[in-house]
């Protein structure tokens, strides 16, 4: 009886922990890794390399405010990576990473960006697909 109750609580805790930590795909169309890589490298669209470094030997001036993207696909699951892209603060409220798929709850957004998310749903899927290809912790 006691074992059952403990198991029940453990299961409940696991289920409660899941929704924020991992997110299902945002679209029915699988992401294209190649497009995702281009978005991450684009300093006007993705902005990722301002803070992160990653396996981009052709890109000088990569930031060091955030962990390297190398090995991201080995460290986190697809759902976990998607959750961090959609809204990193849902996983860690202190994160400085912008929410790439949330337009609400922001202050004084510039007119050109108001009401818009940084990425579209499909772009999130593209970037997730590319991140999942990063299995090596060390950049080549």
């Amino acid at each position, binding site marked *: 009886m006691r074992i059952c109750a403990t198991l029940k609580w453990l299961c409940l805790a696991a289920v409660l922990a899941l929704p924020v930590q991992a997110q299902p795909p945002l679209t029915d169309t699988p992401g294209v890794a190649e497009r995702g890589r281009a978005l991450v490298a684009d*300093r006007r669209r993705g*902005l990722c*390399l*301002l*803070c992160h470094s990653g396996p981009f030997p052709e890109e*000088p*001036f*990569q*930031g*060091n*405010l955030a962990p390297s993207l190398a090995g991201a696909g080995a460290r986190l699951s697809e759902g976990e990576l998607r959750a961090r892209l959609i809204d990193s*603060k849902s996983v860690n409220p202190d994160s*400085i990473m*912008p*929410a790439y798929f949330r*337009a609400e709850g*922001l*202050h*004084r*957004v*510039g*007119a*050109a*960006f108001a009401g*818009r998310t*940084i990425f579209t749903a499909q772009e999130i899927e593209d970037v997730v697909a590319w991140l999942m290809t990063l299995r090596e912790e060390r950049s080549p």
Partner: protein
Amino acid sequence: MRFLLALLPLCLPAAAAERRSGFDDMAPQTQAMQRDDSANPGMLWVLEGEALWARGCASCHGDAALSMRGVAARYPAWDAATGAPIDLAGRIAQHQGAPRLARESQGLLALTAFVAHQSRGLPINPPEDARLAPARARGAALYTQRRGQLDLSCAQCHDDHAGRRLAGSTIPQAHPTGYPLYRLEWQGLGSLQRRLRGCMTGVRAEPFAYGAAEYVEIELFLARRAAGMALETPAVRP
């Protein structure tokens, strides 16, 4: 007495020693450019300001080396006429008897640079004026408020991640020690308000208009934060 004065630097708060001017994080060749007045492009504006001073201001204010020494170090200050804080460029722009100068115009930048240059090397010395306290507190709140589509506050970069690299640039501690200053990125002289606007558009926020009270509030907060640090006008920054 002299002995006590010699001890004074030792009594400064420990935090003062950890504060860094953007100058400290620059490449040696950029530092050399700032140090050498004949290589510092900001000195062109100072010289232009000197000419404007001679034509318009000197008849009342006399020799700026005497009358303006230390003035810039005390700004922003309280403006009795408007009942609000005002920064140095704002004070010069609204000056009576002088042609009205627009914010960020070359004439205003030149005069501001010339006046601030008279305080080069002096410690930033915010006035102890209780009327400034509410605006300075609003400035502190603005500094820590997340804004824009990228949802970032000034503090998250310039306090929490100062010294790290945003792409190729070292994030400075945001001490306004050298304004107006020559920025290589701008290829020109610019005010602290221009720099604040740059960060705001960078996080995809709607910037305030030039001269807005919000900028002066942030400037007040930053001046207190940098109190005691030496003025460098005209500074050079990447």
